[in-house]
C-alpha cells in the first residue's frame, strides 16, 4: 500500500471531476461521443478487438491496441476521463492491417471503449476495464 504523487494527483483530479459535473453537463460525455459517431445506430459485438492491461502500471501512459479485419474507422474513448475522447483511427480500403496501438492517460479506474464502424456500415463495440491503483503490498 502506497501513496504516490500520481495517486494524489489522480485523487485531486477525480474530486475536481465530480465537483465539476453539474457545470459540465453540456460538455460531451462518452455516451454523447458514441451517439455522435454512430448517428444513433445500434451497436453490436463482432469484428473488433481491444487489448488493454487489467491494471495499469502507470495511469499516465497506458498501452492499448485495437484491431479489426473490416473496420473503416475505430473510435477510442476513456469513459472516465474529464475529456473522454482519445482517438479515431481511419483505415482505407486497401489497408493491409487494420490495427492501431497507442498510449493513453487514465484519470483513475475506468472503462476504455472502442467502437468500430465496419465497411458494411454497421457498428461494433469492445470494452475493457482498466484499474488504476495506489499499489504496494505484493505477496
Amino acid at each position, binding site marked *: *500500500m*502506497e*501513496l*504516490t*504523487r500520481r495517486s494524489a494527483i489522480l*485523487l485531486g483530479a477525480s474530486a475536481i471531476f465530480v465537483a465539476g459535473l453539474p457545470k459540465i453537463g453540456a460538455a460531451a460525455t462518452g455516451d454523447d461521443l458514441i451517439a455522435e459517431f454512430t448517428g444513433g445506430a445500434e451497436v453490436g459485438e463482432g469484428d473488433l478487438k481491444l*487489448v488493454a*492491461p*487489467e*491494471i*495499469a*502500471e*502507470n495511469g499516465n501512459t497506458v*498501452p492499448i491496441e485495437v484491431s479489426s479485419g473490416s473496420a473503416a474507422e475505430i473510435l477510442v474513448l476513456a469513459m472516465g476521463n474529464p475529456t473522454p475522447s482519445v482517438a479515431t483511427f481511419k483505415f482505407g480500403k486497401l489497408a493491409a492491417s487494420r490495427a492501431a*496501438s497507442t498510449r493513453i492517460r487514465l484519470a483513475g*479506474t475506468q472503462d476504455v471503449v472502442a467502437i468500430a464502424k465496419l465497411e458494411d456500415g454497421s457498428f461494433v463495440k469492445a470494452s475493457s*476495464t482498466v*484499474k488504476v*491503483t*495506489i*499499489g*504496494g*503490498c*505484493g*505477496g
Partner: protein
Amino acid sequence: MISRRDFMQTSMATAAIYGSTGFGNWARLAAQQALTQDKLLEFDTFGNVSLIHITDIHAQLKPIYFREPEINIGVGDNKGVVPHVTGADFRKLYGINDGSPSAYVLSYEDFSALAKTYGRVGGLDRVATVINSIRSERPDALLLDGGDTWHGSYTCYHTEGQDMVNVMNALKPDAMTFHWEFTLGSDRVNEIVEGLPFAALGQNIFDAEWDEPTELFPPYKFYESGGVKIAVIGQAFPYMPIANPGWMFPEYSFGIRDERMQEMVNEVRSKGAELVVCLSHNGFDVDKQMAGTVEGIDVILSGHTHDALPEPVLVGETIIVASGSNGKFVSRVDLNVQNGRMMGFRHKLIPIFSDVITPDKSITALIDEQRAPYLDALTEVIGKTGDDQLLYRRGNFNGTWDDLICDALISERDADIALSPGVRWGPSILPGQDITREDIWNVTSMTYGEAYRTEMTGEFLHIVLEDVADNLFNPNPYYQQGGDMVRVGGLGYRIDVTKPQGSRITDMTLLKTGEKIDPSKTYQVAGWASVNEDTEGPAIWDVVEAHIAKQGVISLDPNNSVKVVGA
C-alpha cells in the same frame, strides 16, 4: 474410444486415490511415530516425464517453522474453494487426521504443539536430497523454480541475491520465472540472469519503452525428457511495477498478457511440443482463470500466493499444481504423454520435514559457506517470545508478527497509526523461542525497507484501505495482486468483502482514543515498504530490533480490531 477428457477424469480419480493414499500415509505414520524419509519420498514412478516444482523460497536456506493461514477468503467464483479452505475444513476435504504430520504442515490449529512434535520444515540441503532421489528414479526430470527465490533474508540482502544464486545453481534447475528478484534493481537482475546456467523465462516480461518482448527473458524453452518434447513457458508476476517499486526496474513491463500466452502455446504446439507446461508466478486464482481462457496448457506450476495443495486442481484439461513457500514443500508430478497428449498424471506434494529428510552434505556445506561471513550478526539473540506467544504472518489480515511490527512502528516512530505490507512471506517463531537478528530480517528484509513517518487524512487512509482491499477481494482474479490486506496498528475497521471498491471499509476507529476516524482530520502514520522513490526513514529491521530489545520478552495483546463480514 476413450476421449482425452475421459482419460483426464480417470487419471484425476486415480490421482485422487493415490494422493489420499500418499497423504493418508503421513497421517498413519504419525500414529505409528514412524515418519521416515523413504515413506515421504515413496512414489510409484509413472508415465514418461517427471516435473519437480519448488517456488517462493524467499531465500530460506535453512529449516524454519512456517504456519499456514487461518484466514484465506475467496471471493466470487472462488468463494469456499481451494486454496480458500483452511484449518479443519481443509483437513476434512483431504481426509487429514487431527494432530497428524499433514495437519501440522497444511493447517494452522495447534501449530505450536505440533511444531514441537514434528520439528522444523524446509532447508535447501533437504530439498536437494528430495531432488536427488527423484532424479535417481527419473534422471531427466525437469526442476522448475517458480521465483521469489532471491529475496527474503539477511544474507540474501547483503549478497544482493548471490547466496541464493549459488545454492540454487548447485541444485541445477532447468528454468525459473520471477517476481521479487526484480526488487534487486534491473542492473543486478540483468547481471545475474546473464550468468545463469538455466533458462530465465517470462512470456509477459516486456521492454517498457517499446512494449516488446526482451531478449534476456525468452517466453519459453524446449526440453527433451523421456522421449517427449516439452515446452516450458514462463509467466512472471504480472503486477510487479504496481505491487513493488517500478522505479527499481523501469525498463521492464509485465501484465497478464493472456492473449500472448495463447500465441505462445500455439507457437510451441506448432513447433512440435507434446507437453506444454506453464511455470507461473500469477497466483492461484489468476492461474485458474488463465487456464479457463488459454487453451492447450497441460500443466500450470503455480506460485506467488504460497498455497500448498495436496492434489492438483483441474480446470478443463489443465492441471494446476501449487507447491507452498519458504522451502517447505516440493511437488513431484509424473506424466504419461503419448502421441502429443497428456494421458494421465500422478502427483505428490512432498513436505520437507527437516528432522526426517537427511540433508545433502555438499549443499549443507555450500549453504554454510554463504552464511559464514555473517554468522555472528545472524545469530545474535535480540529477545524472545513469551510462553504463549507464537509469531506468524500468513493470513488475509494481521498475524502476530505484523502486530509486533506495527507496535514497533508506533512506539519507535511515535505514530498514531502503523501500516505494514500484506506480504505472505516470513517464517514463524514458536512460544519461548529466542528471536535472533536473522529472524527479524526473515520477516522484514527487502531493498526498500525504509520506515517512513507521514501525515495522512482520515479520508486518505480510507482510500488506502479500500485500494488494497480491492487488490485482494475484487471478484475478478485478473484484478487481484495476490498479497494480503495491509496490516494496521492503532486502527480498527470493519470490512465487508462482498462490497465493491469504495464501500468495503467502514467503522474506522483510532484505537488509542476509541474515536471514529475523521475524514478531514490529519493522523501521524508510520509504515514501511513504500513503492515511492526517495522514501526516507530508518530501516524497518532496525526499528523492529530496537523495539524487541526494549521489550525483552514478547507478549502481545490479542488483536480483535478488524471485523470481517461476508466471508
